[in-house]
Every structure is written in structure tokens, then in C-alpha cells.
């Protein structure tokens, strides 16, 4: 056990932070998210060229074979800058599912992904499923030439722009059964697919997808028939750690902004930071951030070496923690900023919104606490 980062890891984090400090300041980000599509193709191209899209992808699929700790370091840096590009959708979810589900297809798809030439999205949750991964009612019906998909996928992150959607559907079993869920590769512009796209409250993009008799070929099946759930759970657990790392980055930035504000803003003739109540509350925020950071990387370190209940439990712990701590830090940061914290022009509110939406992505703190209890 060592509990420290390697020099390579420190360099990776540094290089991403340097890039973002240069190209992705708060104003730049505002322009990007208000621009066409809500994110920057140029930034994405840079990510590809700098090797960051390839980094978390396994070497056998043309990636650089980064570990979950590496991925967490990247996400932390993205969290500090509130990156809105489709990294979670394409890399953390999409590429990982393809790699785990179907090595053969991975060899074809992932090099394109790593090159920044193909965007993926994972269409799994449905209006009534909330955070329950087994609850899939989208139906896949076999036809002569392939499969016909019918159903509604809810709040698909970057489902608006994906070239390829990875869609879970029932080829057997009842609504909440573990067996019978199969993954399909569906072109983003498939016939019969209606997209309602929207910005999300935190400045990302999403879509609700209606599949109305969408026909795909036999080769659209990704991986083993009816056995997708284990893969989905594994990928979502790892994505929970990645989201937590992003949250840790956002929390750190939030604490920094708040501390800076307390130092510069005066009230009753004194800097706000001289008021003991505000000092202690800033310390509480910092403390939450420190402990979340420590737990996050410990969990990331576990992800690549354990499986099953141990993996699930660890992932739920950090996801529950980031939900709780992120909420506390975000709310307190706005409060400590006073009226200014309520305005769109200050960065603090944007971090707050991202922190709250990280919580509702793949299960909020309450859901994950329940999951931990149910596993006990």
C-alpha cells in the first residue's frame, strides 16, 4: 500500500490543469456552453490530440490503458474547470461499455473514439426507472433482418450529439429482472428515433429519446444477449467514482473561490473572512473536501482490483459521500457569497449546480445509502 500518486500521475493532472487554465477559464467556458451544440469541437479535438481521450481506454483497444486512479485525476481536473464536453458520455460510459461488452467491436469503435471522431452516449435510464439499473422496459423485438426497438430513454447525457447510442433493451425477462437486458448500437440519426434535446441545469446537454419501431441489424447487438446488466453495473460503479472525482474537483474550486471571496469582500469595515462564524464554516467546507478527496482516490484505487459486492459497496460509498458533501459545500459556498452567490455572473453558482446534478446522476446520496444497506 502506498496511497500516493506516481510522478506520471502528477504530470497528467498538471498538464490537464495547465491546458484548462489557458483555454477553459470561466468566461471561455461560458462562451463554449452558450455556443452551438453547447460544447467545443475544438476542445474535443485538443483532448484527442493530447491523448486524453485515449488515456482511459485499454491498450488492446488502441488506448493508453490508464487506471481508474488516472481517470479520477482527469475528472478532478475537469471538475475544477467545469468541463462541458461529452467526456463522461463518450469515454467514461460509452467506451468502457463497448470495451467490456464486446472486445471485437471495441477494436473497431474505440480507436475512432480515441481519435475524437466518434461520440458515444449511453441510453439506459427510463422515466420510471429512476436510479434502478435493472428496471428496463424498452423492448427489443426480433425481426427478420434484425431488431426493432421501442421505448423511452430518459435524460441521456449528451444523447443529443452522439454518433452512436448504446441502448439497453429487454430481449427477455420482466421490467426489473436482472436477466434479459441486451445492449444495442444505434446510430444517432436512426429512423424512428425522436430526440428531445435540452441543456441541463448545470450547463451540459442531454436528451430524452423515443424509440418508435427503430430497426437495427443483427450486428447491432453489443456483447452477449440478455446479459448486459453485470457490465452496466460495473461501468456505472466506475463512472460513479469518476463523477465523484469530478465533484471533488468542483468542491476544491468552490472552496478556493469562497475563501478568496471572504478575504476580499468587506462588511462592517472588516473582511468577511475575519468573522469567526464564516471561518468555521469555510473550514467545514474544506474538511468535507479533504475527506471526500481521500475517500475518492482510495475508492478509485480499489476499482481495478476488486469486483462484485466489494466494488459495488465502495462505489456507492463514495457516490453517497460526494452527494452529501457536494450539497453541503455548494449550499454553504452560495450562502457565504451572500447575494453575489445568487448571480449567474459568479462562478460559484455554476459549481453548485454541477455538484447538485452530479448527485442526481446514477443515484443520489439517499439511493446509494440504501444500496449499501441492502448489500449489508
Amino acid at each position, binding site marked *: 500500500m502506498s496511497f500516493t500518486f506516481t510522478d506520471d500521475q502528477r504530470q497528467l493532472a498538471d498538464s490537464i490543469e495547465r491546458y484548462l487554465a489557458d483555454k477553459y477559464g470561466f468566461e471561455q467556458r461560458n462562451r463554449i456552453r452558450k455556443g452551438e451544440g453547447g460544447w467545443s469541437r475544438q476542445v474535443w479535438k485538443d483532448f484527442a490530440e493530447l491523448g486524453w481521450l485515449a488515456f482511459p481506454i485499454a491498450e488492446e483497444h488502441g488506448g493508453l490503458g490508464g487506471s481508474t486512479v488516472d481517470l479520477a485525476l482527469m475528472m478532478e481536473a475537469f471538475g475544477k474547470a467545469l468541463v462541458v464536453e461529452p467526456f463522461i458520455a463518450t469515454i467514461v460510459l460509452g467506451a468502457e461499455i463497448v470495451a467490456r461488452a464486446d472486445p471485437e467491436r471495441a477494436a473497431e469503435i474505440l480507436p475512432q473514439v480515441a481519435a475524437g471522431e466518434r461520440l458515444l452516449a449511453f441510453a439506459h435510464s427510463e422515466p420510471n426507472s*429512476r436510479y434502478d439499473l435493472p428496471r428496463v422496459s424498452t423492448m427489443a423485438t426480433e425481426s427478420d433482418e434484425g431488431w426493432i426497438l421501442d421505448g423511452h430513454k430518459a*435524460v441521456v447525457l449528451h444523447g443529443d450529439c452522439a454518433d452512436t447510442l448504446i441502448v439497453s433493451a429487454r430481449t427477455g425477462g420482466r421490467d426489473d429482472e436482472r436477466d434479459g437486458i441486451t445492449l444495442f448500437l444505434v446510430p444517432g440519426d436512426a429512423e424512428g428515433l425522436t430526440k428531445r434535446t*435540452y441543456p441541463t441545469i448545470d450547463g451540459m446537454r442531454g436528451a430524452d429519446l423515443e424509440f418508435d419501431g427503430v430497426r437495427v441489424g443483427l450486428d447491432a447487438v453489443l456483447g452477449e444477449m440478455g446479459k448486459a446488466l453485470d457490465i452496466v453495473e460495473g461501468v456505472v460503479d466506475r463512472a460513479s467514482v469518476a463523477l465523484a472525482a469530478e465533484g471533488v474537483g468542483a468542491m476544491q474550486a468552490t472552496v478556493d473561490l469562497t475563501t478568496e471571496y471572504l478575504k476580499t469582500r468587506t462588511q462592517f469595515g472588516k473582511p468577511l473572512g475575519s468573522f469567526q462564524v464564516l471561518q468555521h464554516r469555510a473550514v467545514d467546507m474544506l474538511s468535507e473536501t479533504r475527506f471526500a478527496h481521500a475517500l475518492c482516490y482510495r475508492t478509485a484505487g480499489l476499482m481495478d482490483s476488486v469486483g462484485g459486492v466489494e466494488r459495488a459497496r465502495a462505489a456507492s460509498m463514495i457516490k453517497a459521500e460526494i452527494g452529501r458533501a457536494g450539497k453541503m459545500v455548494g449550499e454553504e459556498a452560495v*450562502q457565504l457569497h451572500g447575494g453575489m452567490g445568487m448571480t449567474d*455572473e459568479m462562478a460559484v453558482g455554476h459549481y453548485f449546480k454541477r455538484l447538485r*446534478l452530479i448527485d*442526481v446522476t446514477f443515484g443520489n446520496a439517499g439511493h446509494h445509502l440504501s444500496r449499501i444497506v441492502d448489500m449489508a
Partner: protein
Amino acid sequence: MDVVLSPEEEAFRQEVRDFLKEKLPADIAEKTGNGFRISKDDHVRWQKILHEKGWIAPNWPVEHGGTGWTPMQKHIFDEECALAGAPMVIPFGVTMVAPVIMKFGNEAQKQRFLPRILSSDDWWCQGYSEPGSGSDLASLRTKAVLDGEHYVVTGQKTWTTLAQHADWMFTLVRTQDTGKPQEGITFLLIDMKSPGISVHPITTLDGSAEINSVFLEDVRVPVENRIGEEGKGWTYAKYLLGHERTSIAAVGRSKAQLRKLKSIARTELAGGRPIIKDPDYARRLAQIEIDLLSLESLVLRTLYAESEGRPVGAEPSFLKIKGTQIQQGLTELLMEAIGPYAAPYQPEAFRDDGWNEEPVGPDYGPALAPLYFNWRKASIYGGSNEIQKNILAKMVLGL
């Protein structure tokens, strides 16, 4: 101690209910119910209905157009209005500036302003806060210089809620720079159509634009629009802060939110079960019901003490803190209730000019996350909760 409604009070509740059933426009109630924004026209339409009934200003003395209700009647009225989905009466005129005019204004000011407040012909806004003044209100710097029969006012006000609709602004300005900061402050009523005034919306983190910056550049304000004496504005402002302070607890509004929350929590499913049956969610709901009942109990006690002429003291600071904690707690539970559907940002779905498409997710969904984010303001405005605690430590504990 009598905590059960009397038959007369029950009858009054029924009277209010009947009135609301008959007179509250359905389109307005529906907007309120879904958490959508209420347009200026909607507000004025409803307030004129209340005026016609004589119920627009329960806090006013009867001789000026008040209702003469007991504290309990006022409480029942507020609660029934909130439960029926009536929009809140915009407080800046009726609740805030009017008592100051009644108490410190001259006869001409009373004649000129009060009737138009009562009839909602004038929309008022409050020009207190300034950039940099925050909780330290007395540090304000907007300057008013006497020039013959006018004050010439220059400066910037901020966090001015709904100033975009306002005909008039009551405001604190600095007429003297020496001495204690409180001493050089004057209370002016400013016509928002005056040359030199510009209103700029401030977008808040929920994406809405209810608040504004108001810039004043050499705005000429007739001396006749000054309330009371020059340099005594702080006194008048403090009187205003002391007036109707139990309403800040917003018990009626929170009861309505709670009812809405329960209805949503019975609809939304998690693990195939309504979330109201989730043990943790249900307990948090129960706790907030206890909090709300406690709040209401202290509000009623305070109202009765006030009506018996006993001093209210610092009680409103307790009510403000607890009231806003409850309001914020409700918005948290509301946002949590819709799960991942908190994410889509659909401002068109709750704009005040209406929208006829189906939203993504449930109908009640689009407004909930913005409500949560917007309502973080509740613990900041009206004297932040930290300021309230400073006041309580000093006034009640003597620390």
C-alpha cells in the same frame, strides 16, 4: 391556551375558501400550482380582485382600508390563499412602504400614494441594497444632493426584486457623509419613469431574472417625495423592518408546498414504490412537518402576544431563520422527488407568458430544480440568517 379553531374561525375559513373558489382565476391558480412564474398582469388582476373584496391589506388599520381581522383570521386567510394557489400579494407596496407612509408621511403623501397602493395601480419596488453594502445596509453610498426643490440622486441599487415592473421605488439615500453612517440617510420615494433611471436585470443561478440593478444618474426627485425629515431615513427603515414581521415565516406558503410535495411523492416511483413510502424520504417529510408545525405555533403565539400589546422583541428573527430553513428543506425534497428529471433545463416551461408544449418529464418537473436553486436566496435576503443570529445573540442573550 386554546389551540383549536372556534366555530367563528371555522366559519371565517369557509368564507375565505368560498371566496377563493369563486374569484381566484383558474389560469393563475394553475400556474402557481405548477410553480410557473406569474406575470405582472396576473398579479395585478388578482390584487384588484382582492381590493374589490376589501381584502388586499389585512395589515392596514381599518380606517385606511384594512380588514380588522384578528391574528388568527389573518393567519387563516394567508393559509387558504396559499393552499388555493393565489399568488402572493407583492409586498413592496401594501406591506412595506404603506405602513411607513401612514406613520411618517404627510397628508398629501397619504392622499397621493395609499389609494393607488390599495388598488394596485402603482407597482412598488424597494431600493435599499447596494453593491458592496450587503448585510451592512447602513454603509450605502447612493448620494442625494439638495438642489432647490429637488434632490439630485446618483448611485446604484441592487437586488431590486421585480423593479422591471415598478412605477415607484422607495429608497434610502445618503444626504450626509459625516457622523455615524446611520445618521445621514434619507427616505425618498422615486418615480421609476424619472429621467436618469435605468433598470438592468440580474440573472440568478436558476436562470431567472427577477432581480435587478437600478442605476440612478442625476435623477431629480422632488423634495415633496421625501418621507419625514432629512437624515432620519434609518429610523423609518427600521420601523418598516419591525412591521408585520411574522409574515416572513411564510407558513401558508410552506403548507401549500408541503401539500404539493406529498402529492408528487405519491406519484413518483423509486424501486417501483412511491417515494413517499421510502422510509428515509418519509422520515424527512415527517421532520419537516414537525418543523412547520413548530413554526406555526410560534407565529401564532407571536401574533397573539402582539395583539394583546405585549412586545414582540426579537421573535421575528427566530421565525425568519426557521421559516427559511423549512422553505429550503421543502425545495430540496421537491427537487429530490423527481430524480434524474431535475437535470433538464426547460425555462420555457415555466415562463410567465405561458407555453403550451409538453415538458420533458412530469408536468410539475421543470420548475422544481430552479425553485431549489432560486430559494437559496431565502437565507440571504431580508437580513441573512447570520445577521439574524447576530441580532439574537445581542438582543436576547445579551452576548
